[in-house]
């Protein structure tokens, strides 16, 4: 796989009009060896109307690492993922309580623009969704163009950089004008990843990105995730336990909207503290 170009946070707008209270320093750590925290979440709850989907979640998700979210259907893992970039707000009647900070900034602050949140925290979905009427190149650049980027050199550079980072460049460099929908399932998913990376997010959220893919396409996405963690924070929801074990550094187990256990992946899969966790990872849940 091609070496990942260094990500430069060019043109990152602050979440609110005022500068952030604690400016982010990517190289900072509070002490030698301490992990840098991407998401600091405390007492976080979420309701869809009267129904509570998340209960008092406390979790610190490390930066430039892969965190897997696992749990049975209906446990709140996709809801939790969507809360990380305020995507749940597209569903009417949702409300939250508690605090959710990204590199120290409150994502739910009163002056925060959700559109800016979603640029800093990109998302890739289970069913790949390239814009059907757009070409491969147009798909990748749509986010930049919507943000007013017009400089052809910047667009061209970012197009190549994003497709390289998504391990798709070699396969599509001669057919960039073809429709995004002309690609295979696995390629379309990598196109969606390139599209998300083009706006230079700090975080990439992935909601069961390989569920619809065959084993080879899945392996390519996993290799990609492994490479992306050098520069990006990745949070991945997966129901594939072996995938979580392979790709992630830390794993969080959710059940009935609660965070049951959260630890380094090896511990969750080798000797979890909670019997519910053990039952789930061993396939004895339910």
């Amino acid at each position, binding site marked *: 796989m091609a070496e990942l170009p260094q990500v430069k946070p060019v043109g990152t707008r602050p979440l609110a009009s005022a500068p952030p209270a604690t400016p982010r320093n990517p190289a900072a750590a509070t002490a030698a060896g301490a992990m840098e925290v991407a998401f600091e979440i405390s007492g976080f709850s979420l309701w869809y109307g009267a129904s509570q989907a998340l209960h008092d979640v406390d979790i610190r998700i490390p930066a430039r690492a892969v965190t897997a979210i696992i749990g049975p259907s209906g446990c709140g893992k996709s809801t939790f993922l969507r809360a990380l970039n305020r995507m749940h707000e597209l569903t009417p009647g949702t409300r939250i309580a508690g605090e959710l900070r990204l590199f120290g900034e409150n994502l739910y602050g009163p002056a925060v623009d959700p559109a800016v949140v979603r640029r800093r925290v990109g998302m890739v979905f289970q069913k790949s969704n390239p814009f059907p009427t757009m070409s491969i190149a147009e798909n990748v650049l749509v986010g930049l163009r919507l943000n007013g980027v017009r400089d052809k050199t910047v667009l061209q550079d970012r197009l190549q950089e994003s497709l390289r980072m998504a391990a798709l460049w070699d396969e599509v460099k001669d057919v960039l004008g073809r429709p995004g929908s002309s690609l295979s399932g696995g390629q379309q998913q990598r196109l969606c990843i390139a599209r998300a990376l083009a706006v230079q997010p700090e975080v990439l959220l992935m909601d069961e990105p390989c569920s619809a893919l065959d084993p080879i396409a899945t392996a390519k996405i996993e*290799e990609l995730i*492994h490479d992306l963690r050098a520069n990006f924070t990745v949070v991945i929801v997966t129901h594939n336990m072996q995938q979580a*074990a*392979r790709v992630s550094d830390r794993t969080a187990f959710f059940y009935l909207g609660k965070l049951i256990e959260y630890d380094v*992946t090896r511990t969750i899969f*080798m000797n979890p503290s909670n019997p519910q966790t053990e039952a789930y990872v061993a396939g004895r849940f339910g």
Partner: protein
Amino acid sequence: MKRFFDAELETFRSQLILMGETAIEQVRAAMKALVESDRGLADRVIAGDDRLDKLEVEIDDEAVRYMNLRAPIASDLRLVIVGMKASHDLERVGDEATSIAKRAIKLSAEPPLKPYIDLPRMATMALEMLRDALDCFLQVDEARAIAVCKRDAEVDNLNRQLYRELTSFMIEKPETISRAIELMFISKSIERIADHATNIAEEMVYLSHGRDVRHSEEVKKVTSG
């Protein structure tokens, strides 16, 4: 397609090869300490057993981690399983080397019963068996592994022959009893080292094609006698 965790399997294989080389070196050094009555070398062999113990724990830990987090299939799974078993055999080889070294120290206090010829010859055969079995980690060779099992009979025969000789010594000259007994134990240790080499060779056959030849006629016939 190369996966990002393939390097972990290569490191695992390298650790096994390192453990094999260390075990072979321990046996060689222990035999040298015996033949040359070198107490200093014997002491170093005894102290060096720690490394093999640590390697066994590391290899087993990595095997469990790999099985847990990578869910290996087919030859990858066989490599991990064989690695765990081989690490146990190699740790026991190390223990036998330590035992030989301790007896070498005891024997160095008195002149040898006779020049050391048979024991070094046995040890060379056992070490060659171990070398051939371990080389299969680098390049799996089923025929070579099965040949190792055949040679175990020779080592067994030499051990029995030495027992008879030493028994005669003890009957004729009771003052040789304590030395003869130490030599019998050393011979037994070398015979056990050859057995461990045979175990590893059987594991290599399993690694190559998933055939379990332990206790089968294929190896049983050739080791009887």
